[in-house]
């Protein structure tokens, strides 16, 4: 019982021994050292990428004679043997799965550091 009282007493004194430390500009100093917000850069990058994708699409449409290549490609795909289509679908799936697994592994490694 005395042992328990002593431990309570010690814990209480330890907690009392560390009073609240006033901020006194500490938070402001930390915030000053933060890197600039990424949001604007990300937004700018997204706008540039979307713009380029849009321009490329318009250009491809005009150059290909009004998008005739799309229907031609589908016709060619439809003419392919079933085995070829299956192999194409399987290899695409494998590439995407490998990329996903690599991204997951690198992300979990980054979170461990």
């Amino acid at each position, binding site marked *: 019982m005395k042992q328990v*009282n*002593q*431990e309570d*007493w*010690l*814990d209480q*004194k*330890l*907690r*009392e*021994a*560390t009073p*609240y*430390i*006033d*901020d006194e500009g*500490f*938070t402001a*100093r*930390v*915030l000053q*050292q*933060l*890197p600039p*917000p*990424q*949001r604007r850069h990300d937004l700018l990058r997204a706008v540039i990428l979307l713009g380029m994708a849009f321009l490329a699409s318009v250009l491809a449409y005009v150059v290909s004679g009004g998008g005739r290549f799309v229907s031609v490609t589908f016709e060619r795909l439809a003419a392919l043997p079933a085995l070829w289509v299956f192999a194409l679908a399987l290899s695409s799936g494998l590439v995407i799965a490998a990329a996903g697994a690599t991204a997951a592994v690198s992300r979990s490694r*980054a*979170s*461990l*550091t």
Partner: protein
Amino acid sequence: MELTDADLVARVLVDDDQHAFGELVRRHQSAVRGLLRQLTRTDVALADDLAQQTFLRAYKNIRSFRGEARFSTWLYRIAYNCFREDARRRKELVGIDEEKLQTQHDPQVTDPGLRHDLMRALSLLPLNERSAVLLCCQNGLSHDEASRVLDIPLGTVKTNVLRGREKLKRMLADWGPN
């Protein structure tokens, strides 16, 4: 209604909201600076430098905070790592031996204040015991949380807390309850 730490972290993650991060710093600065002051044996300037490093590192790695532990526990872990890296650089990772511990205890002569004696007694503990006692007894972390912060087995934390407490009780025997 006051936002929780998890809400503020979400704002930092989604919007890179530095005001939200500032609120997290304001909430936890006292505890982190207090812990580091004790770990650095009350070197206030060094402790505050390390506390700044802690929050900057927390900001850069906030995506790795998954919310499984309390935000404060995660911060303590970063703070302890900052301290350890700095101590390694300074080669100060050495404990104080028992002999020194015995000879330096003279509360009646040097300082009549319990707080001062307590701080000094803490600073005389070896680092592993000091950090375990600080986290568990002073900051209220469970043994399990402390083992995550210190990156040592649970059993070692319990042993270090026990030994640290015993030494503190011995050094503060004159002040203790009868």
